[in-house]
């Protein structure tokens, strides 16, 4: 057991720190500001071009073939510099590399990793949230193409995306929507396939959603009305969509893949600075909320160290990502609560209060990427082995 940097890790850390000192874009705290989301693409390409993104991904696709623990160093240094977190798209990379053909990987991974092509993920629908397999968007074969019809929701960055990793029903015999029918020929999760759908085309309509903290640039709904995608853009085999979706959501639950620790650590540090500037202005309970958020954030940082170290011997966590997602959620929400506590009355007298926005955004963490209730079901039945009836 050794938490120290190896010589190669120390060299990487020094190089990264020096680069950040000169290249921190000074964006506002992510999650609370439209400007952050608007300029996120610039940050992605800057980080990538400097050689600090896609660390553990294959070099032939633009990654660096490094062990996953290098991402711990990246998150540490981004937080310490007050820089924006790394782009959270590791789960898309995992999904495409696990299920995509060589041709698909070669076509899409380099642009995804470099940030030259931007992606969104079209899974959820108005009537298919936690019950994702009941989704109703269809992909109908028409010559060399598929025609897409349906309605996706909670689609982050859809307005700026070049591509959508879309889950759609390709087998008309499989039943979407509502309860399984006794006449169902194919179970509802078996008729699904995944596609890389080009977003810039006439059959797609964007409808932004405003989040409870006022952000309009992150979230959206996407309507597909006769949109077209080449059959060659199918990722995996026909009917492999559900397995691909499960690969993606299991990685979407891992804080080591998402890099959110940097965001939490940055916020906690700002809260600590606020209190330190005038400790006598804060009550004991406000200080305690900040210290607890610090303890939680450190826990998550160390938990990510442990998880990414375990990957050194190729351990695949399977359902373990649900544990990590729940821990991450508790951390984000304790940081949000601390921000609200420190802000005190300002949070209710100033609707633009930054802490209020951090707090409100934190409430989404127990829903996005699979609700906490779904994660607990997974932990209980698949990890603890509790009986299902």
């Amino acid at each position: 057991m050794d938490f120290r940097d190896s010589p190669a890790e120390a060299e990487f850390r020094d190089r990264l720190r020096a680069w950040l000192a000169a290249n921190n874009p000074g964006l506002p705290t992510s999650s609370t500001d439209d400007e952050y989301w608007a300029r996120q693409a610039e940050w992605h390409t800057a980080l990538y071009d400097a050689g600090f993104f896609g660390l553990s991904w294959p070099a032939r696709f633009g990654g660096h073939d490094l062990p996953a623990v290098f991402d711990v160093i990246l998150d540490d240094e981004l937080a310490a510099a007050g820089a924006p977190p790394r782009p959270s798209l590791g789960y898309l990379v995992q999904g495409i590399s696990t299920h995509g053909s060589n041709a698909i990987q070669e076509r899409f991974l380099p642009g995804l990793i470099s940030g030259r092509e931007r992606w969104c993920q079209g899974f959820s629908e108005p009537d298919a949230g936690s019950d994702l397999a009941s989704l109703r968007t269809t992909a109908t074969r028409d010559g060399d193409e598929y025609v897409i019809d349906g309605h996706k929701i909670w689609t982050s960055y859809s307005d700026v995306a070049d591509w959508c990793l879309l889950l759609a029903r390709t087998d008309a015999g499989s039943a979407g929507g509502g309860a399984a029918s006794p006449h169902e020929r194919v179970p509802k999760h078996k008729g699904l396939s995944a596609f890389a759908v080009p977003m810039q085309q006439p059959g797609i309509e964007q409808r932004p959603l405003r989040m409870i903290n006022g952000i309009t640039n992150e979230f959206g709904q996407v309507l597909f009305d006769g949109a077209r995608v080449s059959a060659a853009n199918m990722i995996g085999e026909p009917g492999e969509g559900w397995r691909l979706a499960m690969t993606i959501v299991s990685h979407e639950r891992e804080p080591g893949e998402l890099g959110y620790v940097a965001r939490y650590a940055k916020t906690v540090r700002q809260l600590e600075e606020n209190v330190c500037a005038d400790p006598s202005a804060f009550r004991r309970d406000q200080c305690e909320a900040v210290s607890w958020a610090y303890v939680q954030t450190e826990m998550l940082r160390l938990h990510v160290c442990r998880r990414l170290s375990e990957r050194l011997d190729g351990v695949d966590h399977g359902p373990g990502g649900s544990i990590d997602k729940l821990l991450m959620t508790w951390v984000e929400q304790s940081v949000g609560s601390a921000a609200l506590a420190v802000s005190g009355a300002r949070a209710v007298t100033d609707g633009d209060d930054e802490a209020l926005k951090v707090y409100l955004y934190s409430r989404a963490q127990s829903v996005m990427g699979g609700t906490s209730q779904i994660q607990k079901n997974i932990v209980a039945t698949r990890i603890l082995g509790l009986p299902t009836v």
Partner: protein
Amino acid sequence: MDTRDTPEQAELRRAARQLASRLGPATVADLADETRAKRLAVAVRDAGWLELRDVGQEGPPLAGGVEVAIVADALGAAVGDVAFAGPVLARDLARRAGATAMEGSVVGFSSPLRDAALVTGAVTASPIFGVDAGDGIVAALVLVPDAEGFRLAQVRGERTGGPTTATDLTRNVRVIPAGTPVHAIAGQTRRLTRDDLAQWSALGLAVTSADLVGVMRGVLDVTVAYASERRQFGVPVGSFQAVQHLLADAHCLMEGSLSVALHASWSVDNRSPDDACEAGRIAKAYCARAARTVCETAVQVHGGIGNTWDCVVHVYLRRALLSSQWFGDDAAQLAELQELRLGATRGLS
């Protein structure tokens, strides 16, 4: 960076868990089995675990904080009724002073068991608590201010009460009353510095955190098994989501606690005394809160039987209460962290 166990650490973890689960009490009735408890004590002694922090050949201790934490975790999971952390912490402190702790020594704590007791007169002015002392007469090491630092002295207490009179049914807390004579310890070659005490506290925080991680894992194993067997409404109670979610929360708390406790145990010997101490405080704050929730969940999931003396879950809860309090509970650690990081004083309203 590689936080995995080395092969030696993995082997120690396996051996400690096996020994503790073989000889630890499986039921409340087992606590009265003195033959078993004696075999456990002999096995722990013969394994050399009490000497982990004794002086090695080059001066540093034989083993690191990680190894001590591995054993503490295993004993916590089996609610092992054997003195381990108490003697090891005494021997660690004695080593720092260049002295040898006599067998059966523990460190004397002042109430509320946060810090080693400080003594200035020829007799003690307030009660001193010897935590995790074995059977028989106990000698408690205390600190005596000496120039810029401290030297060690000892106070001796008679055995008071059997194991069941303590809160923790698996480890003793011996009370040595005020007015007990303070004896010098001969042959000390070093004065203890502030850094010595910080590093020693870091070890105490790490070992109590590791014990709590073990307690959580042990009580969860018991509780998941119970929820899978106990039937109501014709089905196992563990099939109800309300129960499943309580246990899932508890399991996550245990996993997070393990991550933070491992780091604290590694920090003891590998970071500056102040950094090691802070790592210990972070771990202890998290583990103490988590263990309280996990043990209370275990009582709840056991239902009526969980509130009876004969159900083993309160043995875990009681052990968690002592391990939390020892070296300071979550509230104490958060107060220290506020002082350290926010400039907030203890007297803050």
